């Protein structure tokens, strides 16, 4: 049986972390606080994709993709925004959030772990925004120019929120120091 350095099995770890992140996604989607940031445009910016990013960065692309799958299914069943009733728009983009976040993080990890986490969160969020709007355009719900405007007004704030929260969570969990270390003399 595959075990990791801490002696727990990889399979159990993946199942449990994925489940817990799915639980956070569902919870944020149901509660009146936490999941959405009200915006003057009437469409809310969301934080629901952050668990997929955190899961992807902590446990790899498979866990990230799995959380994304269940996030997609959840928004298909419960979302009040009509375009997410289209299964193509709801599920496919979400599959890739955790995967791209993990790939960006894994690629940059050896330079600076915190920066890698931040870039991973930004890329994961960007994947969500670009793919959701891209599929909305392909499926004929929006014109390209309108999708571009939404990408700018919502994508950028969502990226900032996701980066701040993901970096705080991963830094605290992995106990990465966020301040420059003192002299080692």
């Amino acid at each position, binding site marked *: 049986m595959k075990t990791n350095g801490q002696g*727990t*099995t990889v*399979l*159990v*770890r993946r*199942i*449990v*972390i*994925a*489940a*817990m992140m*799915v*639980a*956070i996604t*569902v*919870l944020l989607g*149901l*509660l*009146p*606080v*936490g999941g959405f*940031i*009200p*915006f*003057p445009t*009437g469409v809310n910016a969301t*934080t629901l994709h*952050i668990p997929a990013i*955190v899961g992807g960065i*902590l446990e790899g692309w498979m866990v990230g993709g*799995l959380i994304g799958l*269940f996030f997609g299914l959840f928004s*298909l*069943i419960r979302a*009040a*925004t*009509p*375009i997410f*009733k*289209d*299964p*193509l728009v709801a599920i496919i983009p979400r599959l890739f959030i955790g995967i791209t976040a993990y790939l960006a993080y894994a690629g940059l990890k050896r330079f600076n772990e915190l920066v890698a986490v931040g870039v991973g969160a930004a890329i994961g969020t960007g994947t969500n925004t670009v793919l959701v709007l891209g599929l909305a*355009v392909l*499926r*004929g*719900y*929006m*014109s*390209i*120019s*309108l999708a571009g405007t939404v990408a700018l007004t919502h994508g950028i*704030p969502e990226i*900032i*929120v996701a980066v*701040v*929260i993901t970096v*705080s*969570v991963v830094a*605290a*969990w992995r106990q990465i120091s966020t301040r420059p270390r003192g002299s080692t003399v």
Partner: protein
Amino acid sequence: MSQLEFLRYVTIGQYLGRDSIIHRLDPRFKLLAFTLIVVAVTFSSTYTANVLLVLMVALLLSLSKLPLGHTLRGLRPALPALALLALFQMLFPPQSFGPAQDCTVIWQWGFVTLTTCTLQLIVVSTARLVELFVLTSLLTFSTTTTELVHGTEGVLAPLQRIGFPAHELTLVVTIALRFVPTLALQMERLVKAQIARGADFGTSGPFRIIKATRRLLPLLVPLFLISLRRSEALIVAMDARGYTGGRQRTQRRRLHAGPTDYVALIAATGFCVAILWIDTISLDQVLIAWLDTFLASLK
């Protein structure tokens, strides 16, 4: 203060018990049939197909014996967004979908032009979203969460032979659903702790984006860390009990399919194929031409 009782919002199971054929279907067959009809809705792009789909949804709704008002009430919060979507589709027409056809201008005012193609796009996509809305409500109202989880596992079970982790996937859902109420209570405590320190939830307008975002940090970061800590405890507990995945695992509840289930699945398959077929032949034009000649014969 009743807004702070977060367990009130945790309504994942929306099951409404009725003694109907839809409620009694084997969850595996119900899920497969549901998926097929959703595929049909998703890929329908013509008027004819959508008229048939609306009729199908209405038939299923009446078979399920669910109260019509209750099912449609869920649609109400989505109506403004649906209207906005249609408006934007009219003002900034996206690329049309479906078979290529000639577009003729029906109505023009200033820079706004409504062609037959845009009209079809608006009508079809609105109809599709409403159909999908009713279908998903129908599924969640007529199936308990446990049935959904068991059904999903049953549907995916054959894939386990080629190494697909069907059991593990359903375990993820089971654990997630188990922890949503626990985390809701945790979140309630976090929000109350912030309020006790003078935080202000609930009175921010849409123009206080930065304020609204900064308020989220002391809630979300601890929520993540607490749930990760709980995960570690659960991982150790499952490991200590020797959990090794599900290949030889048996179930306490076994599902049995009857003739009704097979009939339902076959009917759904036939319906899905028919809808996809109608979309490929241009039945719309034929029907519109018939209607034209019929109206002409009346004059």
